């Protein structure tokens, strides 16, 4: 039984507002929404395809001149890169298990899974500096070895370029990671607050 005051509020709510649209939704409006949704779905498919292509491209790049690698420095470089790539891939896959995007779940489940996704992201951000340290621990001695084992001594610019890029990439990764970590912590706090509200 709905009291008259609430019924009146329901009528006001369902009738009014700048976005008030008649029910049922008119055909032209449905067509417009469908067009937009199709465009955005296509964009998402392209994005996913781009990610897969980038991963496949990396693998192809690693293997493309494998048959021509005979020097120990090249083989060590190849094996080290492949191992680091596999470690990153396995961690990423393991860390994503069980957290899907639950658009049609109840709000409580959705909020719980959203908070869990944030925790996983935080775990990734904790893992990244360790992976970076491992990469540098491998790349720095390997780069020195590679540059020293050239038939002709490498000019100073080549040394600067090799280690400059490494330093820049590391700084960018650490800076970006710190920014993303702050954002993730804030987001997690908001999801957890929502969850407390739903559990009260």
């Amino acid at each position, binding site marked *: 039984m709905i009291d008259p005051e609430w019924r009146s509020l329901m009528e006001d709510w369902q009738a009014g507002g*700048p976005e008030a649209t008649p029910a049922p939704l008119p055909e032209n409006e449905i067509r417009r929404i469908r067009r937009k949704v199709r465009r955005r779905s296509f964009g998402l498919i392209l994005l996913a395809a781009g990610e897969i292509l980038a991963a496949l491209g990396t693998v192809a790049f690693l293997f493309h001149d494998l048959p021509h690698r005979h020097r120990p420095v090249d083989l060590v470089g190849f094996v080290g890169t492949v191992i680091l790539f596999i470690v990153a891939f396995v961690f990423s896959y393991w860390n994503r298990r069980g957290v899907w995007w639950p658009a049609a779940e109840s709000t409580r489940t959705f909020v719980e899974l959203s908070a869990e996704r944030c925790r996983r992201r935080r775990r990734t951000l904790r893992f990244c500096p360790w992976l970076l340290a491992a990469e540098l621990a491998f790349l720095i001695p390997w780069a020195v070895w590679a540059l020293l084992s050239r038939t002709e001594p490498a000019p100073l610019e080549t040394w600067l370029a090799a280690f400059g890029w490494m330093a820049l990439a590391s700084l960018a990764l650490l800076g970006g990671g710190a920014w993303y970590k702050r954002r993730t912590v804030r987001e997690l706090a908001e999801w957890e607050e929502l969850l407390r509200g739903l559990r009260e």
Partner: protein
Amino acid sequence: MPRALEERYDRMLREHGPALRRVAASYEADPARREDLFQDVCLALWQALPRFRGECSERTFAFRIAHNRGLTHGWRARGSAAADLEEAGEIADPRSDPESEAFEGERRTRLRSAVLRLPLPARQVVVLSLEGLGNREIGEVLGLSENNVAVRLTRARKLLRQALEEGARR
């Protein structure tokens, strides 16, 4: 997407589209961002529909998606709808005729403003109740027990009444 699903999607939009727009309006005061949110909800509905096996009613399913997208939008848009409302001032209805619809328009605007000012958990139950959902259905959307919904709704209605009175005094 198979033809049958497309037809189902169109039907759901036709039937629940206006309600989904109002749910979007309960999360976002800014008209442009509100339209973006509504498009997000439509996209999420399109993506989730092939996996819908009828575990709940279509209305519950659509409202779940709308509320979940609204929550994500709230986080992404940074800041609450209420905060935006304070900045934007009262929501004006551009189509309303100030002479003939002044009273009704003002009452509806005050209701919408009051709803947007509610804390999120209260806002969710109030919006679903204003849309005509019963306690069991609200529970299915939010993942709460029927009793819990009843308790929350009583509290939320009080808050809404207070917000409406405050709005009337302004």
